[in-house]
């Protein structure tokens, strides 16, 4: 069992018979950054809570670095750093004291925590707040401290549960920058999210889940390659005119046309890159002065929506 995270038929039933995770099988490869994607209530957080010993497992197995989380949570979580939900901190401790506490629980000496603490607080851009009590910190600041404590002991596996959830746009960008930075290191990262752009931006692999079941699991690029349906946003310098639009609707691959304003419209297009380039030429041939011609929305979103739709 070489993979750092292995889920075998993992199942979680809540009271009243609600099955949150249903026979989930997943193997996370070493040094991959896997986005665990699904809509609200899909079972992402429940899976992560079982992995981090916050919830009991109804049936199945969860292994971290080859150790069964249910039978030996202490050893299983030994080389794991986790940020689950939005943790609250002990308000009377400073970030550095929090790191000392978490580090001590993991067997780190005070000088070791001091040196490493400096590194991780710098990584999450919290150095200047290192000795300020956490009590009054904003949610974004707390989330960055949460990331720091997950990294303090130099884990091999990092588990993140919607790390940008509830943050303002600036906070989201800051946390995402930290996540991108983590990719440069040899961590295995398993991150739940319902934000498609976030997953596409930072992850190498994606596992799609809905109703507690795994729908797809592959490299981001491989999944994107499967997507041949795109929405194209076109902005023109001249005005939309009826005759050209009728012709446009008849072009191969065009499945839908939405006019937003006299200078802007969307095309739902089914085809490959070659066909997309051809479409641009045809638009110009119709007399449109193209200002901008780009894919609108995320390709992953299209795949996500079609998979979610078919699973319901």
């Amino acid at each position, binding site marked *: 069992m070489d993979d750092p995270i292995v889920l075998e038929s993992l199942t979680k039933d809540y009271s009243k018979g609600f099955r949150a995770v249903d026979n989930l099988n997943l193997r996370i490869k070493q040094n991959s950054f896997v986005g665990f994607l699904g809509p609200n209530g899909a079972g992402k957080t429940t899976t992560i809570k079982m992995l981090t010993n916050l919830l009991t497992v109804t049936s199945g197995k969860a292994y971290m670095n080859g150790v069964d989380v249910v039978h030996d949570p202490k050893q299983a979580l030994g080389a794991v750093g986790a940020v689950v939900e939005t943790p609250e901190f002990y308000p009377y401790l400073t970030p550095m004291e929090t790191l000392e506490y978490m580090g001590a629980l993991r067997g*780190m000496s005070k000088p070791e925590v001091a040196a490493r603490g400096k590194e991780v607080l710098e990584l999450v851009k919290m150095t200047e707040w290192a000795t300020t009590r956490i009590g009054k910190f904003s949610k974004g600041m707390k989330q960055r401290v949460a990331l720091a404590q997950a990294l303090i002991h130099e884990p091999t596996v990092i588990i993140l549960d919607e790390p940008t959830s509830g943050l303002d746009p600036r906070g989201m960008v800051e946390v995402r920058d930290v996540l991108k930075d983590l990719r440069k290191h040899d961590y295995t990262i398993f991150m739940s999210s319902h934000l498609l752009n976030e997953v596409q931006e930072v992850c190498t692999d994606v596992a799609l889940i809905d109703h507690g079941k795994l729908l797809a699991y592959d490299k981001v690029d491989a999944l994107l390659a499967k997507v041949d349906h795109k929405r194209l946003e076109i902005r023109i310098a001249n005005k939309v005119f009826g005759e050209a639009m009728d012709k446009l609707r008849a072009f191969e691959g065009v499945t839908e046309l939405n006019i937003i304003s006299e200078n802007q419209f969307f095309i739902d297009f089914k085809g490959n890159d070659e066909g997309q380039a051809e479409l641009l030429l045809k638009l110009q041939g119709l007399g449109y002065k193209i200002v901008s011609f780009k894919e609108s929305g995320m390709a992953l979103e299209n795949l996500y929506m079609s998979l979610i739709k078919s699973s319901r």
Partner: protein
Amino acid sequence: MAVTSTRELPSDLQQIVTVTRYDIFKHLRSRRLIGLLIIEVVLIVLLLIVPPAVGNPYPKDPAQFVSSITSTFTSILIVIAVTMFAADSISSEYQNRTGYLLFPNPVKKEVIYLGKFLSTFLIAVLAVTIWYWIPILAGLAVTGSISSLAIESYGLALLYAIAASSLGYLISSVMKGSIGAIVLTFFLLFMILPISDVLVGNIGGIEPSYSLTYQAGTIDYIFQTPYPHSETTVTPIPGGGNLTFHNFIPQVGTAIGVMIGYIIVANIIAMVIFKRREMVG
């Protein structure tokens, strides 16, 4: 930044010490501990100063000297301490969501429980020790000796504080919210159990040996020489019939056994509940 593999984890015992250290740190920073100790010292100073100031001389007997200071407030101080340091110890991790920070660490739930309980135990020992030993030493200065009865009362007070803390931890493990745990612990020890002692014992005629607050009565009774014994008073009611009033006196040996029983049983149940409790919501 190098990424290394698994480091050797500390033993359970080392982790218990770590949890204890930071829990005591919490109470120091939150000023709860300092607040309680200040209340204790102010009370002791007042009880030492006021009687001679109003013309009541100090008792000549060292046991009576200590009893004159401690007897009124020992139980209530212990109830306040338990409410402050035990009642929300577990429930706050859930309600305040700090459990999301602490529980995903490689630490057994039992270790977290024992670490927290040890911190409460140490605080209880500190609070009870200050409450008894300032009067005992003041008594030594005034009467020239230390009473063994005062030491025995101190031991019983310590045992009661630990047993009541165990009950507080049990409530904290069961209750969802901190406020509920605090209110229930306080009223259970301050009102519910004492009222049941009266109803079951004095009126019902059944010795409430099961009751922690009843057994805690030994903390004060032990100062009396000879040690009092249970008695039943029958008072004739005009117009016919009798009013029977039972005055049960807990025995020291039984009290020690019951309090140790509370410590063992409450902590085992609390630990099992805490271990099985899920972090939801």
